[in-house]
């Protein structure tokens, strides 16, 4: 029972972590809570279904092949990246330098727009996600890890390792870190800040897109409203770990998933969201900048 809850929690948590990364990266660079990020995740899930539909209509695939899954995820990543970059260009870039709340309202507007756009274009009803996993999973001390859980956790870890390498080993990663530290100084030393910000949105959105496809497969159903709750959860995870901090988002996501699974399993499934938020408040009382966040000294 405990082990089973831990496995479920880690699965959910790794998805939260993937979405939280997008929040935290954007926040780290332009200090914006990108409320539309949850919607990007939702778009990713839809793109998965749409790609699958396209592939089957064109008779290009058998529904259980691994290649189908790969194509679905790549398409979702491409589509979400394109959307993320476009949203930044359209709704956030003109507001750079305005008061902090203006881009936030703009982000909420984008979120409402995308939700309703998808509702109108794809219909308000739940859509079934194709079952692509025939695997049996593994028995582990009487608990069961299903194939899809293994897949979700492995993919998330892979993505996070790739992101770490990108941020710490590449030129664009270096530029991102510099921009996050001080945008003005970064632009003075010749970094094209606009491009770095676009790259940040691109990467964050791609991660959310992958998360969308994986959650769609895990639960089997998606609708136009899934971005809302996932967005709030992922944002909570990002803050829990210390917003702006990449390893923090990963840790926060995993912790939140575990807390939820254990709370739902042992206390009450109806109150699991209350539980998650309560933990967040307690953590923030003792560590106001999150678990891994640095205590930022205020510039006067």
């Amino acid at each position: 029972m405990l082990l089973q809850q831990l496995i479920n929690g880690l699965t959910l948590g790794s998805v939260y972590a993937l979405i939280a990364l997008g929040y935290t990266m954007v926040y780290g660079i332009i200090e914006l809570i990108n409320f539309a990020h949850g919607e990007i995740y939702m778009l990713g899930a839809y793109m998965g279904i749409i790609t699958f539909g396209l592939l089957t209509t064109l008779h290009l695939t058998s529904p259980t092949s691994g290649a189908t899954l790969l194509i679905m995820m790549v398409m979702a990543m491409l589509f979400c990246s394109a959307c993320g970059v476009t949203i930044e260009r359209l709704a956030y870039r003109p507001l750079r330098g305005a008061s902090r709340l203006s881009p936030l309202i703009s982000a909420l507007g984008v979120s409402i727009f995308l939700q309703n756009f998808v509702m109108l274009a794809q219909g308000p009803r739940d859509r079934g996600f194709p079952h692509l996993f025939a695997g049996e999973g593994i028995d582990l001390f009487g608990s069961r890890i299903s194939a899809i859980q293994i897949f979700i956790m492995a993919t998330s870890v892979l993505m996070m390792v790739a992101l770490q390498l990108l941020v710490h080993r590449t030129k664009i990663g270096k530029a991102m870190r510099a921009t996050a530290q001080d945008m003005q100084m970064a632009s003075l030393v010749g970094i094209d800040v606009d491009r770095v910000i676009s790259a940040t949105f691109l990467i964050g959105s791609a991660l959310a897109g992958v998360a969308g496809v994986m959650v769609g497969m895990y639960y089997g159903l998606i609708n136009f409203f899934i971005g809302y709750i996932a967005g709030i959860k992922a944002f909570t995870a990002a803050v829990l770990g210390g917003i702006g901090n990449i390893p923090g988002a990963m840790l926060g996501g995993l912790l939140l998933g575990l807390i939820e699974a254990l709370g739902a399993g042992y206390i009450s499934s109806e109150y699991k969201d209350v539980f998650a938020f309560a933990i967040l408040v307690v953590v923030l009382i003792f560590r106001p900048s999150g678990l891994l966040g640095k205590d930022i000294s205020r510039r006067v």
Partner: protein
Amino acid sequence: MPTPRRSIAIIQRPFPRIVLTSLWFGLLSLPLMMELQAPFFGLGRPLLVSAGVAVASLLRLAVSQRGGPGAERFQRLMGAIGGAGRDLVGQMNRRVLYVVALASAVVIPLGLNRYHIDILTQVGIYVTLALGLNIVVGLAGLLDLGYVAFYAVGAYTYGLLSTRVGLSFWEVLPLGGLLAAIFGVLLGIPVLRLRGDYLAIVTLGFGEMIRITLNNWDSVTRGPNGILGIARPKMLGFTFSTPIQYYYLILAIVLLTIFVVDRLNRSRIGRAWTAMRDDEVAAEAMGINLMRTKLLAFGLGATWAGFAGVFFAGKMTFISPESFTFFESVIIVCMVVLGGMGSVLGVILGASMLVILPEMMRQFALYRMLIFGGAMVVMMVLRPQGLIASSRRGIALGPKDRQGSASAAVTSFR
């Protein structure tokens, strides 16, 4: 801005750029809008999106061709209108203006039908809420994304005390405000040390916690079924029942709110709030007790949500957790920001717009929220400081804005 490379230089020219932009949006909407079973795979709709984007870009180009980018021109125009409006208000006798506004608020609804009066009552509820939140967000600069929780506290206070204890509306009204204020302070205490966006998520979480609790605590709140049969307000043996009676009741509450919030704004506490908003460290150095000031903002802000909640329960005679979602909090924040943070007039305008516009768009039914979301973005991009920027805030802005609002600053301090 680095010089564009030769290969992308062509994109910088207006017409290729517009063509590419519209194709890009067509491409983005393609996967969501196409239908494989439809004739031509339903490609018409993405093409329509492309065409729409092209028209919009052409319009924007046409505006920006004559002097400066379009957005800036629009800004200047809006600024001029705002300034002229303020000058006009400043020159007219303020008392006369208030009397005219009040008289029209009293008289005009007499000639309207029930549906329109109901909308005006709705406006009243949201003006009260937005003015309350304005204390927290606009004046004190604390981003609260769970404000609807206090609204819920007010509504459930009346709902429960009316159906279980049998207290009357007028007994509960102050109680609801008080209880909401207590909740506000309770929320305020743990978040005193938090800054900016950490505060946002904790308040959001608080709002969700209240809603989830209301939804699941069946023995007390009857869960998602809500509370039925809440008593209507009575006064001197007369029971409020028609829309117009409720309208006058909320009008009275709104007037009280405007009066108190305006006085607070000009008081010592109000100045402490704005000082804290602009720079916490400097404010503390000037001897402002940050803890006390923040808690006062949370408490006094929540009070109005409590009043609005009690009224809401009394009017609807039925409440359920569904009325108190995160979306409501978002809408109230939008009212404050769209109208112009810190400005009482702006917030009233913002609240009225965000209630009335969606009602007017009812004929577009399905597309209503789509347009609403898009309009929020466009509005913010064109006018980030809100419809009517607070005059006190205007003084702190850069030299370009200073000219526009200098006269306004004079009038507001007269």
